[in-house]
């Protein structure tokens, strides 16, 4: 069995499961946000439910349009807040919240071997911790909130092996964009992506979160990593309960095993309007930008901000460009403050925001006008994703984003720093 099969078997009372099998899975954590919770709460009441299955296993985070951007958003946030208070749920108010997928691992709410279902497609982020985590819609989440379990089809698995050492300015974002560029936006449809190899073992946790986060952009149900020393170190002061580590068997079945020489992968940029539309940084040409966004559940962690600060230190954001930097959580924000990164950003002429998903989905804090171009460390570049359907979004890592903010066009970090 694969790591995924073992977690799902343990959560469905079975000794063994195999791909294609329909099972009822017990959830260790159920998640919703200010956009998806209102629909889920309505369905929860319509179901006739009165109490969630376990108030300490249901988490709600006001992160998408919060701090509330307009009156309808404020109404949605209010509805979620009142439900969370009444039910005694795990809830993080503005000022304490972060982008859900940055926040939950930080708070030790997700641990290896657990099952998480969330009404947000990027719930798959927690696979970085060796958990099985997958996104669902509001109705599924309403049922999961009431029952603590949900039906699933055991996914098939594809194994990705990254050989060699990563080059300068290359990280998790580049590995996942390169992979999606190779297999396509439905290249892992309904499957689990299992990541392994020398480059993965060397990859810091922040980079692993980035990769697992974008598994959905290849159509995957989940993206998973094995637990190792780095995972355990990350969890050392966060985990407050014991956890189980699972490993794929040597003879586990994969529908495909795909291998890459990671040492040859350069920083990647996904062109409009699909995450699979990737090019290496040296094949880009001259693409002028109006805005750069550094943040999101994909690249809003401290390691991402450090990378951006390395390039922005003592330099200036291009006068014809807006650079918006959004720490993914209050912990990240405080860490960046203590390390002096926030001062570097502000002195460089960047805007720094409180945590929010905001511009990633065209909500607020950096929505694009018709004809505008943005390079963003976020996860999707669909038509209209960050604002006007006539705008364009390019996806890249935080170093490329910082270099581009300085140059006013898509630029390689090496243009700024040399080697």
């Amino acid at each position, binding site marked *: 069995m694969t790591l995924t099969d073992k977690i799902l078997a343990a959560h469905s009372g079975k000794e063994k499961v195999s791909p294609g099998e329909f099972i009822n899975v017990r959830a260790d954590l159920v998640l919703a946000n200010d956009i998806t919770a209102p629909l889920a709460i309505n369905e929860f009441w319509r*179901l*006739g439910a009165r109490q969630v299955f376990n108030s300490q296993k249901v988490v709600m985070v006001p992160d998408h349009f919060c701090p509330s951007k307009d009156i309808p958003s404020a109404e949605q946030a209010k509805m979620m807040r009142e439900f969370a208070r009444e039910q005694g749920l795990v809830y993080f108010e503005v000022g304490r919240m972060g982008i859900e997928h940055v926040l939950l691992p930080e708070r030790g709410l997700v641990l290896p071997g657990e099952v998480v279902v969330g009404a947000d497609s990027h719930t798959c982020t927690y696979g970085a911790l060796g958990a099985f985590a997958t996104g669902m*819609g509001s109705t599924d989440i309403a*049922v999961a909130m009431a029952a603590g379990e949900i039906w699933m089809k055991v996914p098939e698995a594809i194994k990705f092996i990254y050989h060699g050492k990563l080059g300068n300015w290359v990280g998790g974002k580049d590995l996942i964009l390169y992979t999606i560029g190779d297999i396509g936006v439905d290249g892992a449809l309904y499957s689990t992506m299992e990541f392994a190899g020398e480059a993965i073992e060397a990859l810091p946790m922040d980079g692993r979160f980035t990769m697992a986060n974008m598994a959905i952009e290849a159509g995957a149900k989940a993206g998973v990593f094995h637990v190792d020393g780095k995972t355990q170190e990350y969890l050392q002061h966060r985990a407050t309960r014991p956890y189980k580590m699972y490993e794929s068997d040597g003879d586990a079945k994969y529908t495909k095993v795909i291998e890459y020489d990671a040492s040859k992968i350069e920083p990647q940029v996904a062109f409009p309007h699909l995450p699979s539309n990737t090019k290496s940084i040296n094949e880009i040409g001259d693409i002028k930008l109006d805005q750069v966004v550094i943040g999101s559940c994909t690249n809003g962690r401290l390691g991402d901000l450090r990378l951006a600060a390395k390039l922005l230190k003592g330099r200036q954001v291009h006068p014809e460009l807006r650079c918006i930097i959004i720490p993914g959580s209050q912990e990240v924000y405080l860490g960046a403050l203590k390390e002096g990164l926030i001062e570097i950003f502000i002195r460089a002429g960047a805007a720094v925001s409180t945590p929010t998903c905001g511009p990633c989905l065209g*909500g607020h804090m950096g929505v694009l006008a018709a004809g505008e171009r943005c390079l963003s460390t976020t996860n999707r570049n669909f*038509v209209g994703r960050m*604002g006007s*359907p006539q705008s364009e979004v390019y996806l890249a890592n935080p170093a490329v984003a910082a270099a581009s903010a300085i140059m006013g066009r898509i630029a390689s970090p090496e243009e700024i720093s040399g080697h």
Partner: protein
Amino acid sequence: MRLRGKVYKFGADVNTDVIIPARYLNISEAKELARHCMEDIDAEFSAKVESGDIIVATTNFGCGSSREHAPLAIKASGVSCVIAESFARIFFRNAINIGLPLLECDDVVRETESGDILEVELVSGEIRNVTREKLFRAKPYPDFMMELINAGGLIEYTKNKLARGL
């Protein structure tokens, strides 16, 4: 259950951001969402679409975010079912859960164009292109899924089951 309607055909990777742009996600009312359905890919869609009409698309329909607002907007706009070569998995669950039928069938997608009239029999999986006088067959739904769709979605289905003491 027999469905009949005019076809609106789309290509690959029709994502949830174009089905219902995030700028409308501060709305949860299905009828209001329907006014903006497919707006960023076909601005006239909500004005043209009539009750019973059918969306046909190629691969990976509904990819992207988990927003249930996407199938809700499609259903409330009057669309009776979506036929595609393949669907993104979260969208698939969401659509079934709210009672919007989806069918996977490569042949019908290849041989159907916008404006054609289709008749769909969900129980047998039979799809007839009335305009081109062609018959296709998709995999029929299992009984429990037909019951779920007929009930109007997962919530009604679960409620009915609970009421029967199952």
